[in-house]
């Protein structure tokens, strides 16, 4: 099969047939890649719920150059040969995304100072980069009681944006799921089947895939803030998973263990609950070295003299250094 040519924000790339616009944009780079809250490369059938990845297709294909009548979800739309897409260069897309962010924040509480996800929250980044600074919502926000999903995971449904990622994890990663989404529309919520505990060895991964602080690690609850910790790549021999993880250290103490996330905030390799929740002694892990953190991330703030490597993103460097 021949490669398809697609132009996104004026940048052209050739991709395999069947590639979605979002994946093609990610191949070009973070400058043109639309943000995504529900799409997750490693979870099948994910995407299509949150609408943050909306883009404008100004030219359908080489054969049919008519533009698409409405903005399309780039995570679910596959590219055609000669397609031309506008993301950040389109005023309409930027404005629509602002609206989407406002909708996502309608029921989301403003409890970032309390939330353990703050600092690595995708919704925080999304609203900071693409949202309005004020909400126009005047009505009562929906709230829920906190629920314990199993011993180590806490579900705070108030913060949930219904991205379905955790449900896909339960479906695809763990056989025989015990939690899903009940009800519809405004009253939809993540629930376990009659409060059944999720006691699968890989259930902890739903903490990593959750873009907000709805699913959090109870062993790390209120222990520290992510920006006080030093992320270190580490591995251990595990008979259930790859054992490749990130340990978040404060001094010599390991506060929590997470999967290794790539540039798009997606976990490279799933890790098991034993690695995640029970191996918190430095002797359990073989350290590989400090993790690379973008120096604009809050995680890299105020680490004077620490050994963490903070990499500058190319666009942040002065032009002189680049040339």
């Amino acid at each position: 099969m021949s490669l398809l040519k697609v132009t996104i924000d004026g940048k052209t790339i050739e991709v395999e047939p069947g590639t979605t616009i979002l994946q093609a944009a990610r191949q070009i780079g973070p400058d043109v890649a639309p943000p995504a809250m529900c799409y997750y490369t490693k979870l099948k059938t994910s995407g299509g719920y949150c609408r943050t990845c909306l883009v404008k297709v100004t030219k359908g294909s080489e054969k049919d150059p008519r533009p698409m009548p409405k903005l399309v979800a780039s995570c679910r739309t596959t590219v055609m040969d000669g397609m031309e897409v506008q993301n950040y260069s389109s005023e309409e897309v930027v404005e629509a995304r602002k609206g989407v962010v406002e909708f996502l924040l309608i029921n989301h509480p403003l409890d970032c100072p309390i939330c353990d996800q703050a600092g690595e929250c995708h919704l925080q980044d999304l609203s900071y980069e693409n949202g309005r600074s004020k909400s126009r919502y005047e009505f009562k926000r929906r709230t829920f009681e906190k629920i314990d999903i199993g011993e180590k995971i806490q579900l705070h449904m108030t913060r949930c944006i219904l991205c379905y990622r955790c449900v896909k994890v339960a479906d695809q990663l763990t056989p025989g799921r015990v939690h899903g989404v009940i009800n519809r529309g405004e009253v939809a919520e993540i629930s376990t089947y009659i409060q059944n505990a999720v006691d699968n060895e890989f259930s902890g991964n739903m903490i990593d895939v959750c873009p907000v602080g709805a699913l959090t690690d109870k062993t790390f609850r209120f222990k520290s803030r992510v920006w006080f910790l030093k992320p270190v790549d580490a591995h251990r021999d595990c008979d259930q998973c790859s054992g490749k993880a990130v340990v978040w250290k404060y001094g010599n103490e390991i506060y929590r263990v997470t999967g290794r996330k790539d540039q798009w905030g997606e976990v490279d390799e799933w890790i098991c609950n034993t690695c995640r929740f029970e191996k918190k002694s430095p002797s359990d892990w073989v350290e590989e070295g400090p993790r690379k953190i973008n120096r604009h991330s809050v995680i890299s703030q105020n680490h004077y003299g620490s050994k963490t490597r903070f990499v500058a993103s190319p666009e942040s460097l002065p032009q002189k250094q680049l040339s």
Partner: protein
Amino acid sequence: MKSLSNRSKVVSDKNMTLLEGAYLPAVVKGLGITLKHFFRRPATLKYPEEQREFTEVYRGKHVLKRDENGAERCTACGLCAVSCPAEAITMVAAERKNGEEHLYREEKYAAIYEINMLRCIFCGLCEEACPKEAIFLTKEIAPADYEREEFIYGKDKLVEGVEPAKRIDVSKRQDR
């Protein structure tokens, strides 16, 4: 090399004139300068009897505010600590238990909150960063002490009292 400030004087070893060699005019001139300062306003004050007038937004010792119901506003989010250029602030968070709602405003609170006053440079960035309007700098001066340990201020020294009389007014710093 050319001077950067343009204020340096070139030293020469020329011989003094008769008037300069007599020294007495220079001595009188010097005494004149001394005498002039008797009639000037002194640069110092007789502290603590006299106190200097402070601006309304002076940045002195910190206070951790309570809300109108007397509950601590601080939720130990750590933004003050991460914004602090001197790394003077540390804290340990804890979860609020049932029945403690009158003590702490949010479900998380600072069990330990310490500011090292020897490190603090009173820049006010902690106040700027605080999302809960919990920490403010007051007009009070952090007092001197003999022991270094005494300069690590815990919650006992930082949190304001519950009684209305013990509340510390920070409205001037809020209105800016």
